[in-house]
Every structure is written in structure tokens, then in C-alpha cells.
């Protein structure tokens, strides 16, 4: 196995056992980036000090091997503030912006010994579900470069899938980690709102933003969260809970665990191939000893409409600081999608419309939360599709924002409710015609395109989600993506 294909767990073990050095893994990742980035466009910038950092990690290794990620190369979505390292939000507005400080999570990762490979592409300002809204060009799905890798954490997903990095950070405001994870055969965690500090991550929609990551395995996802979760005096919305060891229950299996399947979710909007896939997942959990229970989340039907009021409203306010005075370029540099969301959000907050739109949405949000509270009285966790469709072709939805928004339907509700969601790969599906008039081209690869499902749990139930996800993952074969 090539060093860049390692998981975090394998990398840490090998580094501890001196089977290889951090410089070697880092070099392997840099080689892979060098080889494929021009086609995939996952990285906006490579950290020119990455090898120096790896060398330092190897030196530290001599005296201290307790830092959990010591010498492990990772990459950051380019909305994580990195002191001295250009951070663009994938927007022309910040094209040349060098941050004066590090995000709390970046500091935690550095303290844990991680080597920063570089900054990853994404939909500008994290607005999008395909990666195509980046001002630095779209990212391509490494499993089939005619297709989108999902978004907004497009570069994170593509880079992990193609082993350009060992793991990658992302952000999930309405599905921006889980959806690209499911499009690229990677594991993606949207943690509970307030579990991971938002300080230093460029805000999209402050009441929805969750700071998570994409990894190659569920176990890696837990290792990573062990580093990033918890207290930060710079974030007033961070939990005061004690942070557990997320690896603790990983191997306990799903015997006796009650898993809910919302009956509303297998309705008419779901692509039949996704439906078939999720039914297989349900069956598999049954075989593994979980108790599958049908539940109802009646208001989730309104989740998307609720989300597309609250999110743009907060976006309009959060993007107000970009006036070109203190940093960056002025507001004329915003791309189309940012402009749409700013206008939409400004409108729903404006005098005379606030009650009808924003307030109404905040009320519906309460009903959605209550749906989950009731559901979690009956079940321990819920499984659901991530995206209603498989990955689509580049360019297919760029001119129809509403169609693009609809792909968030299954993911936004976790953000509205503030609960965690873990996307786990569940195989590959073949292209076929679907819907009226759609003729899918034959894929470049006959293995089809990846898909995944998500496990949702009550707030702060990440440990349980890892346990369930890991149990499922053990039944699947790990595939290495090759172009």
C-alpha cells in the first residue's frame, strides 16, 4: 500500500513503530497532489512548509509520541483561518487574504501534531452542493471526472477519496460534509452544533454551521473528533459537556440498538437507485442485530424551505463584513451564488417580510426539532439517505439554483435540529436512466459512482454514531480510487 493511501490509524501506528517517517507520508501525499490536482482541482493551495512541518514532527517523535496526530498530513477546507497561510473562502473577494490568526480547530490540529498539506477547494463561501461555485474552478469527482464530487466541501471529499491527504477538514451548514462524502466513498461527520469550535472558520450561517471532517474510515473520523471537539473560550456556543473518548464504543456492534427509518424518506423524491441502496443498508443492519423501527418526522418535509430562509438570512449578515476596507476586495467581487443568497436573505429579513419569512421559519424550525425529540424517545438513532440522487454531471444544475438546493433536502434537517450526522459509504451504483428525459451517459468507470447513507442521532451522540457506522463499515470492502 502506498503511504498516501493510509488511514489516520495506520499512519499513526506506522509512525509510532518507525515503519516510515512523516516526511515520507507527506511526500507521498504531495506527489499525489502534484500528479492529479491539475485535473481534480481539489487543492487551492499547497502549504509550501508542509515538508518542514513533517520534518519537525519527525524530530518531535524522538522525544514525544503522545500527540494523537503527530506527523499525520491533513488538509483544510479553505475557509479555515490559517495564520500566515492564504485563506480565500474560494472567492475572489479574499483572493489574496493572509489571515492574522489561526482558527481554534487549526490550532488544536497543530497542537496534536498534524502536518498541514494545504488549503482545499470548495464552493465559494461554502455555498453549494456541487463544488462548481468556486471562483477557483470546479473540483471533479475522482471516481468519474465528468461528475461533481458534491459540495460545498468538494475539495475535501475529492482529496480524501483520491488519497491526496490522509484526512480533511470540512464544514457542514446544510449537508456540505455528508453529501460530498457520500458522492466520493468517504466518511463524513457533521458533529452536533456546538461540539466543535466555529472560531476562525469563515461563517456561513452561524446557527447552522458545524465544523467537521472527512476521512477514509469511521474510526479515523472518531480519532479526528477526539482532537477537534470541545471547549473553546472564543466560541460562546460551544458545549460545556465533558468530551468522551470517541473510540470507546467503536467495536461494540449494533446488537439491541434501535434504529429508526423515517417513513417520509422513501417517498417520491428519491432516486430509485438510492432507494434500493438504502433498503440494502436497512437489511444489513437487521442482519447485524439492530432493531429497525419505522418512525415519522412529519415536519421534515418543510426542512428545505425552512433552511432556505434561515440560511440566506444569516449569510446576508455574515457576508456584510466583506467591504474591502480592512482586508480583501470589495463587494463587487462576490460571485453569483453569494449575490443570490445575500439578496434573498436581505429580503426575508427586511422590514415587512421578517414575520412572514424569517420568524415563520424559526417557528417551523422548532417543530422540526420537536419531531426529532419525539423520534429519539423511540429510537437510538435514525438512518436516512444523504442525497436524493447520485452525483450529477458537471454543469447540469449550475443554471438552476433551486434544483441545486433541492439536493440538500435530506441533510439540512440535521443542521436545523443541531444534531449530529455521520455519512458512511454504502457502495456504488450504476448509471441508468432516471426520471423523464434524463439519459445518463455511460460512466468512464464501469464501477459506477459512490453513494452513502447517513446516521443521525440525538445531540452529542457522536460516539453511538461511530459505533453504528463502524459496524456497517466492517461489512463493506474498502476501495482505493484510481484514475
Amino acid at each position: 500500500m502506498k503511504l498516501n493511501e493510509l488511514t489516520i490509524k495506520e499512519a499513526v501506528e506506522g509512525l509510532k513503530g518507525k515503519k516510515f517517517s512523516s516526511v515520507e507520508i507527506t511526500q507521498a501525499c504531495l506527489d499525489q497532489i502534484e500528479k492529479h490536482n491539475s485535473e481534480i482541482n481539489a487543492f487551492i493551495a499547497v502549504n509550501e512548509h508542509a515538508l518542514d512541518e513533517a520534518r519537525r514532527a519527525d524530530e518531535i517523535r524522538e522525544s514525544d509520541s503522545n500527540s494523537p496526530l503527530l506527523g499525520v498530513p491533513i488538509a483544510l477546507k479553505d475557509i479555515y483561518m490559517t495564520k500566515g497561510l492564504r485563506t480565500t473562502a474560494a472567492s475572489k473577494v479574499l483572493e489574496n487574504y493572509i489571515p492574522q490568526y489561526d482558527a481554534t480547530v487549526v490550532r488544536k490540529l497543530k497542537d496534536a501534531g498534524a502536518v498541514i498539506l494545504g488549503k482545499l477547494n470548495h464552493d465559494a463561501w461554502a455555498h453549494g452542493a456541487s463544488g462548481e461555485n468556486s471562483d477557483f474552478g470546479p473540483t471533479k469527482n475522482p471516481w468519474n471526472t465528468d461528475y461533481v464530487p458534491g459540495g460545498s466541501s468538494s475539495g475535501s471529499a475529492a482529496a480524501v477519496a483520491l488519497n491526496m491527504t490522509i484526512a480533511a477538514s470540512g464544514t457542514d451548514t446544510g449537508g456540505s460534509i455528508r453529501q460530498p462524502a457520500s458522492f466520493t466513498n468517504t466518511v463524513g461527520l457533521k458533529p452536533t452544533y456546538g461540539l466543535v469550535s466555529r472560531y476562525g472558520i469563515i461563517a456561513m450561517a452561524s446557527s447552522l454551521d458545524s465544523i467537521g471532517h472527512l476521512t477514509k474510515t469511521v474510526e479515523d473520523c472518531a480519532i479526528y473528533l477526539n482532537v477537534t471537539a470541545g471547549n473553546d473560550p472564543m466560541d460562546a456556543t460551544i458545549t460545556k459537556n465533558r468530551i468522551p473518548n470517541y473510540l470507546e464504543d467503536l467495536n461494540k456492534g449494533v446488537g439491541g440498538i434501535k434504529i429508526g427509518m423515517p417513513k417520509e424518506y422513501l417517498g417520491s423524491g428519491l432516486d430509485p437507485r438510492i432507494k434500493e441502496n438504502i433498503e440494502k443498508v436497512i437489511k444489513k443492519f437487521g442482519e447485524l442485530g439492530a432493531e429497525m423501527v419505522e418512525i415519522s418526522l412529519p415536519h421534515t418535509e418543510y426542512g428545505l424551505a425552512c433552511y432556505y430562509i434561515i440560511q440566506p438570512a444569516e449569510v446576508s449578515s455574515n457576508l456584510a463584513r466583506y467591504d474591502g476596507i480592512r482586508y480583501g476586495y470589495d463587494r463587487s467581487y462576490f460571485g453569483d451564488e453569494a449575490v443570490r443568497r445575500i439578496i434573498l436573505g436581505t429580503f426575508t429579513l427586511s422590514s415587512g417580510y421578517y414575520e412572514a419569512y424569517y420568524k415563520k421559519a424559526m417557528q417551523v424550525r422548532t417543530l422540526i426539532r420537536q419531531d426529532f425529540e419525539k423520534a429519539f424517545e423511540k429510537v437510538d438513532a435514525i438512518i436516512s439517505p444523504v442525497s436524493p440522487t447520485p452525483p450529477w454531471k458537471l454543469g447540469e444544475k449550475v443554471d438552476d439554483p433551486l434544483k441545486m438546493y433541492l439536493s440538500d433536502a435530506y441533510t439540512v434537517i440535521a443542521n436545523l435540529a443541531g444534531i449530529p450526522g455521520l455519512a458512511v459509504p454504502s457502495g456504488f451504483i450504476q448509471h441508468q436512466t432516471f426520471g423523464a428525459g434524463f439519459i445518463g451517459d455511460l460512466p468512464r468507470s464501469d464501477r459506477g459512482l459512490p453513494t452513502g447513507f447517513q446516521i443521525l442521532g440525538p445531540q452529542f451522540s457522536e460516539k453511538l454514531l461511530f459505533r453504528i457506522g463502524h459496524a456497517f463499515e466492517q461489512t463493506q470492502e474498502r476501495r482505493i480510487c484510481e484514475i
Partner: protein
Amino acid sequence: MKIDIKHVALRQAQDKQNGQGQMKINIKHIAKLANLKLKDEDLPRLETQLNEIVSYVEKLNEVNTKNIEITSQVTGLENVTREDTPAPSLTQEEVLSGTRSKHNGLFKVGAILEE
């Protein structure tokens, strides 16, 4: 879950036919509030897109929200404050490092007041 794309496409077509494409948003006014200068040639397309989105989100009108509390945050936290203890600031150089327009340690912008 009614998120089916065909359904939405159909609705979009119907909206256009029924002349429901009429503006819900006074886009020029909103753009002014948002401090955005939009190009005239971009307006029609933007208007159509926003109209569709607004029509879609109006789906919430189906929900009875009488006497329902709002949710503006989900943490359940309260009273998160800090003690009144000062800590070091950035240096002036760091503060000004992102700007291209400065003057004697200050940010410089075009005249705000019209004399």
C-alpha cells in the same frame, strides 16, 4: 417527502405560464440595503431565480405555527460570558496587514461625508 425535481420543474413552468413570475422582491432596493451594485443585464435572470426560490420557501405557509416558539439557536446554553480581563491585542502592523489603503497607522477610505 415532496422534493421531486419533476414536480418542481413543472411548477416552475406553470408559474411562468400563469404570469406568476411577477416580482416578489424589489431587487434594486434590496441590493441597496445589501450594499451590492448589480449589473442591469444580470437583473432579469436573478429575478427569475429568486422568484422561484421565494415561491418554493412559501411552502412554509402550509404549516400552522400559531403559538409556536421560535428557535434561533439550538444549544440550550445561557449566560455564556467572559470576565472583564483585558488581554493583548494585535500589533498595528498586523491590524493593517490586510489593507491596501492606509495612512499614518489608520485605514484610509474614500470620503464618507459629502462636504
